[in-house]
């Protein structure tokens, strides 16, 4: 009983590890062309994503170290989809790269870590998942082995993440010391407003804030995003952020309920700072990856507002927004990675008059940006507004007003890109870029997601029904 239960509940994790092993074996065998390898990998990832739809039961393992539920499964599926899209998008870049398999192994390992992170029921498991998801990423960030910036980014990532995790650990140790337990379900009953616990909690929060890059713990983000290969940047900005957010929210709602008044205030403060700083920095960026880094920081501010709202609606709007955010952000990164893989250009000025030769890419990028900006009919509109609605539930309308007005600022810089693409004159616009099949499929999925998510209403209803169980 225990055994097959084990196999069922851990199915997604096992699948990922299986893929990793397959890759290792491929590596052991005689070396094949990148194309064939990529075909196999994309197929595997697609299957992995498809497998996620097979219904599975809820339950706990390793005396509540590992817990899974429908919601967790959904979250993991979202991540599966994401990694599949990313891998398809980075086709153009990986085709010529000499360490394809290693790259995938790193990414998948980190994904595995995230899975454990999401379904962790114990601070120890949580810590393990966190580190397991971070360390490989640092290595992956360095994957443009010859580029100075790439290794600088990797260095910044590893150092700052190590620093943050040490602070996180300090927090955990204090919690352990003051509550005698590491198990999530037991912590709440030991929580009292003792300064030590508050301090520990703040340390914990800072650890999360670092991962999801909330101001003032965000400073690594831009540099790493800029330096790392686009695929890794996409992974950082979408997958790891999503995973950590899921965990963070679950932790806040389930474990730290007694401290609600405090974390509520903290979230508000962080979100205000994050939105403002993120916008102000995004305003003046020229490198598109860096620009997207700051824009994603600003996005995070909205997410925090959403989380700060009433629990159930907050959580569902979060998950909903993440789905949309995945599509929108990946669509943008897809175009940029393709362009930078082919031409090596990542600057806004290079995109002037982009529409002339690349109408399709331009539209994809535009739609993605509009979705990020939250303009109807793209789904981003709904995602963002639902977050704000969730935040408004507590009646703090001034913050909503602040956020809404900041949307205008963010609007400005998104439109700046659109302006560059469509309106600015450029005597030497970028040449026409051929779109390989895999990226094409990826973009198709993303655009379809952006357009349709809001009109296929059962998605939201489903999330809502799940998050009730929270």
């Amino acid at each position, binding site marked *: 009983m225990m055994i097959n239960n084990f196999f069922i509940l851990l199915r997604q994790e096992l699948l990922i590890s299986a893929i990793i092993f397959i890759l290792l074996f491929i590596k052991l065998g005689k070396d094949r062309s990148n194309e064939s390898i990529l075909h196999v990998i994309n197929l595997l990832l697609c299957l992995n994503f498809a497998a996620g739809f097979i219904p599975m039961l809820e339950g706990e393992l390793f005396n509540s170290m590992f817990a899974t539920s429908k919601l967790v499964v959904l979250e993991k599926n979202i991540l599966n989809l994401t990694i599949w899209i990313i891998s398809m998008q980075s086709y153009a870049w990986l085709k010529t790269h000499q360490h394809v398999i290693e790259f995938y192994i790193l990414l998948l390992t980190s994904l595995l870590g995230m899975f454990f992170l999401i379904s962790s029921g114990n601070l120890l498991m949580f810590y393990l998942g966190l580190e397991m998801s971070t360390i490989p990423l640092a290595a992956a960030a360095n994957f443009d082995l010859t580029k100075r910036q790439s290794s600088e980014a990797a260095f910044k990532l590893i150092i700052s993440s190590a620093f943050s995790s040490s602070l996180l650990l300090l927090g955990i140790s204090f919690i352990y010391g003051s509550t005698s337990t590491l198990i999530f379900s037991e912590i709440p009953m030991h929580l009292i407003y003792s300064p030590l616990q508050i301090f520990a909690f703040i340390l914990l929060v800072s650890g999360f804030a670092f991962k999801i890059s909330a101001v003032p713990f965000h400073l690594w983000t831009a540099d790493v995003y800029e330096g790392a290969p686009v695929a890794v940047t996409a992974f950082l900005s979408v997958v790891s952020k999503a995973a950590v957010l899921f965990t963070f929210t679950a932790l806040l709602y389930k474990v730290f309920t007694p401290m609600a008044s405090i974390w509520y205030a903290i979230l508000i403060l962080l979100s205000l700072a994050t939105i403002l700083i993120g916008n102000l920095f995004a305003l003046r960026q020229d490198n598109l990856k860096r620009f997207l880094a700051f824009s994603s920081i600003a996005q995070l501010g909205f997410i925090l507002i959403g989380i700060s709202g009433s629990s159930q*609606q907050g959580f*569902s709007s979060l998950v909903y927004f993440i789905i949309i955010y995945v599509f929108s952000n990946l669509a943008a990164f897809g175009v940029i990675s393709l362009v930078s893989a082919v031409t090596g250009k990542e600057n806004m000025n290079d995109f002037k008059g982009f529409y002339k030769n690349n109408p399709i890419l331009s539209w994809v990028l535009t739609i993605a940006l*509009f979705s990020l900006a939250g*303009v*109807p*009919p793209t789904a981003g*509109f*709904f995602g963002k*507004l*639902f977050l*704000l*609605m969730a935040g*408004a*539930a507590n*009646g703090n*309308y001034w913050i*909503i*007003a602040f956020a*809404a*007005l900041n*949307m*205008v600022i963010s*609007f*400005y810089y998104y*439109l700046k890109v*659109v*302006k560059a693409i*469509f*309106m*600015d004159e450029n005597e030497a616009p970028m040449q026409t870029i051929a779109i390989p099949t895999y990226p094409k499929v990826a973009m198709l999925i993303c655009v379809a997601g952006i357009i349709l998510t809001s009109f296929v*209403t059962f998605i*939201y*209803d489903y999330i*809502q029904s799940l998050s009730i169980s929270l």
Partner: protein
Amino acid sequence: MNLSLLILVPLLTAVAVLLGNGLKQIRAIAFIGSLVQLGLAANLLYVFLQSKGAGNTAPMLFEYNASWFAPLHINYHVGVDGISIAMILLTSLIVVAGILVSWSMEKLSKEYFFLLVLLSMGAYGFFISLDLFTLFFFLEIAVIPKFLLIGIWGSGNKTNSAMKLALMLMAGSALVFVGLMGIFYNTHTFDIMEIAKMQIPLQVQLFFFPFAFLGFGIFAALFPFHTWVPDGHASAPTAASMFLAGISMKLGGYGCLRVATYLMPEAAHSYSWIIILLATIAIIYGAFATMMQTDLKYINAYSSISHCGFVILGIGMLTKTSINGAVIQMVSHGLMTALFFAAIGMIYSRTHTRMVAQLGGLLKVMPFIATTFVIAGLCSLGLPGFSGFVAEMTVFMGSWQNADGMYRLATIISAASIVVTAVYILRATGKSIMGPIHQEHEVLLDATWNEKLAAILLITGIVIIGMAPFLITNLIGPSTDNLMLQIGKAITLK
């Protein structure tokens, strides 16, 4: 009749436009689509009047209500009353005319027509929505196309104007959103009709009314948030200016009426003096600012500020007549200003200048266009027989019924603007249409069939309202009565 067609048809048209290729095909598709819309609107009017005639006194007709995001109480709820039908007719007319005047749009014609149609879809959706969220959704849909239309096909300092317009409108909708949130969390529904039945606490209203009203006010060029109007209109391509002034600015007025005033009447009543103050300033200030302009498009844009002031004034006065007037003024100004921009566009496309000083005596070489221009001008200065007169007089009458001394003063000042209007309209006409002609303009040709058709369409609308205003008052009268029930409650409450 199924109202969703009003959204569906533009949508399909847009898709068809994307599929079509070659200017000829695309414009044909767009034109047919717009004609179908016009037909729908006409049919809507017909069935509406029929069922009204049959004694149907429901506040909203042809309602359709489907759940969209059930957990958030967001529904797709549509329905029309006289006011929205007037707006829909206006929209459909202007859409047809707009597509006609951009008949020979060579540059990126596919995208151009696509965006035009998308814009019209937003307008239709906005006017038929009875669910605040849906309404807001369509309101914002209508913003982006404007940005692209101005930025890509515009003239002059286009990108800056486009950016300014988009950002200011976005700021407006941000304010609106806050207002909606306030309404939602105090009534737990987005349904306008539901909310109208409920009683939002006065404190809440007082807090959120400014958000909603200012938000929509920015769309309606409320002073001092009007600065997007001149640049936006001036830089936009002809059809875009027509849509912008003819349709989009009406979104604001309609929102002020339907959402802010209708749902929060007490607040509207207690804030009315501010509204009226701003409106009066807008009217007289806009008029004088217009007097100083030298670019035809700027002249019309500033005069739009002044004219839309009448809409706000009518709403702020909160009497049945004045609100009637506000609605009529919306329709009238829509048609009139669209006609004006069309004429200016025709002139510009021939003379390649919009500077009054560089024009003259056009009546000699292009009598049709010149006549169109003069008619638009006369309508704008409120000559009887044209819609402008009816609208303005109704507003004055209604405002005058508001016996408070300050309001009287406001009315008088606003009425005084008709003199200033006469001054700037006649200056523009006298310099550009009359007077000696520049010899390089001697060879220019008169309007082509499509331009003529567009102009005639709009003129017909203007003249019908101007000659037989009872038609439109009968159409919107019952609906304004409904509004007044709500507002009357509020005023008696105080």
